[in-house]
């Protein structure tokens, strides 16, 4: 008993004050990419060529956050002249087209479906479906339950049964072997329901793009309401997306 109390004192309170207080991520974190259009086409082509995810549209000078794994190769090659990654973790968008960006993202709060806010603003129960992800997205969703983020204080929870859920959160590139289970889970959620796609794999196939075993984007299978880019998205990216879209 005594050691429980001693530990309790040593640990203190670690829950963050977000969103009331801002959070700064460490300097090397790569968030929203900023495109600087005023650069020679040659440099843009070089970045596009080196991008392991082929996420750069050299002609339109845009970056596809759905494909991007935020490795920062383009930033290094162009020494930040074409692409520079900001520390802004607010990456989520509500339309697939918005993933193709020059760094100015539409205000997520304004684009969220207003009836969702009314329905789920005070209580949102989500069922997570891991569909062939590498467990990184899953891990960084799971931490939202730890004391620092404490998702439950906002009335948002991950629940065990799709029957008790208001929507699903999908991670992974939806393998051939998981497709049916994903559809079954979605069907078990009572309408109206929300579909949230988390991570590069779910948005575009990510690193596994080109494999016949996977799906290149969840939106090819079902309507997606919220797209959260990243490989994996930082927990703050997920938290910001859920709070902004639903609260």
């Amino acid at each position, binding site marked *: 008993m005594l*050691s429980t109390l001693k530990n309790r004192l040593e640990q203190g309170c670690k829950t963050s004050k977000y969103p009331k207080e801002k959070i700064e991520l*460490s300097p090397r974190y790569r968030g929203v990419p900023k495109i600087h259009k005023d650069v020679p086409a040659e440099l843009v082509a070089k970045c596009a060529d080196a991008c*392991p995810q082929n996420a750069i549209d050299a002609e339109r000078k845009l970056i596809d956050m759905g494909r991007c794994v935020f490795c920062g*190769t383009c930033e290094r090659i162009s020494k930040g002249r074409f692409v520079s990654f900001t520390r802004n973790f607010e990456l989520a968008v509500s339309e697939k087209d918005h993933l193709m960006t020059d760094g100015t993202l539409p205000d997520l709060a304004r684009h969220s479906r207003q009836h969702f806010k009314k329905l789920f603003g005070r209580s949102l129960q989500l069922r997570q479906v891991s569909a062939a992800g590498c467990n990184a997205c899953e891990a960084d969703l799971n931490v939202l339950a730890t004391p620092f983020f404490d998702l439950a204080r906002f009335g948002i929870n991950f629940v065990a049964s799709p029957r008790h859920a208001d929507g699903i959160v999908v991670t992974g590139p939806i393998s051939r072997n998981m497709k049916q289970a994903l559809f*079954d889970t979605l069907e078990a959620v009572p309408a109206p329901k929300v579909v949230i796609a988390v991570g590069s794999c779910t948005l575009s196939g990510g690193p596994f793009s080109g494999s016949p075993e996977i799906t290149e984007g969840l939106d090819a299978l079902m309507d997606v309401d919220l797209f959260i880019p990243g490989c994996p998205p930082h927990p703050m990216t997920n938290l910001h997306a859920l709070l902004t879209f639903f609260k």
Partner: protein
Amino acid sequence: METSFCEIINGSAVAREKIPHLSFDDFRKEALKIVESGGKVVQFFGYTEGKTDKLLAVLRTDKLLVAGCDAPEVYPSLSKQCEPFHMFEREIAEQCGIRPEGHPWLKMVRYHPNYRGKKDVFGNDYAKEIPGNYDYYSVEGEEVHEVAVGPVHAGVIEPGHFRFNCIGERVFHLEIQLGYQHRGIEPLLLKAEPKRLSVIADSIAGDTTVGHGVSMSQAVEALTGKSPDAGARIIRVIGLELERIANHIGDLGALSGDVAFLPPANYFGRIRGDFLNMTLLICGNRLGKGFVRPGGVRFTIDSEISRILMERINELEPQIEHVLDLLLLAPSVLARFEGCGAVSNHDAEKLGLVGPAGRACGLPYDARRCFPTEHYGKFDFPETAKPTGDVYARAKVRAEEVMQSIGIIKSLLAEPIETQCVDFANPDRSSVWAPSSFVVTVNEAWRGEVSHCVITDETGKIVRYKIKDPSFHNWNGLAMSLRDTGISDFPLNNKSFNLSYCGFDL
């Protein structure tokens, strides 16, 4: 022991002509001889080159041994008389359509058509929805029942199907069927552009990003003749150890949660995050994606970052010690951990368990000590093996490894680290890959032995990329631990192993 297998050095490329090419009968006889006298299977797989199909095995004793042979369409199973080949033979049957005659338990591994377009060994038609289409072991009788769980589980976890055969609350047998996470990584690596290789390796298993990243980088380095500088080797070790600490701490917290002791669950949940944030501090990604690349690392640890890391670790170290005591000295926790889900040393040997799961059953093997790579040769690793094989042993091994890893990182941060960072998404296209070569890499990631094998053809093109995650060995350990255990102890045992679905499914 005299053997016609030849010794190979971890992470060094050899010309393929140097690898003994035996007749199948000799190959079988020699492989059985080595493993029956205590050797272990590191890799055993099939591949096709041109029109010929071949088998290749990497075994370990105190050395790494390799040999190959032409693959017959049907062959007498090795598992029939020597269990450690069991999973590998099933994988070969699935990937190559080669049947091991007399295999004691020939079932699919991941549900996919074989690479050679041959008739499916399991009689599946993959145009249909196939997962779960399999006759599980079944039990019948009074008070006897079955529980089917998954692929979609109750938590935020990966998919897999678990079939419990029970009498009342006791588990007779647990059958685990995976494959839901199968992304076709091995064939994808053959057709992907070179610039994509490392990004794919980073996503084999996201909680073992550095482990697989390092294993691929070493293989590519051996084949392209690039070699990381001393600083990069040190930074890789720091990356691997941070990964180990974060995962072990997270699992110890989860174990605590599963016996309803919530304070350590929450403290460790938070502390795990602190270690992930250290990886974020170094490379900008909590899981270490984009950290390691062939030729070195993409991020240096300068004096400022080194100072912050040291500060954070020094602050956390006593907290971790205290929470570990809180957890592992509590009588109510011990009552649940001790004797729960024991796997015998004998079974662990036969299943070929690796990593902490193996060490908890008294198998001392640790690749960092036995086949050191990077900077590991400079350290002494005291053996952490425990004899009891239960949840307590698995928790204790991990607790000791956390403290050991903290010691390693602190000693490495004590000196300034200098490295020339790798800038590009290597390997770039200008690299020349050694033709007709073979390389195997073996590293101790947090779950145990990770191994990558690469074979190139006469033009230097990859003809086979074989990946083995430690979970490939250990899932059967979890199944064994459940025998004659209460079904309600499944979560606890599952957490004590915390195996990778995606690392297994590839």
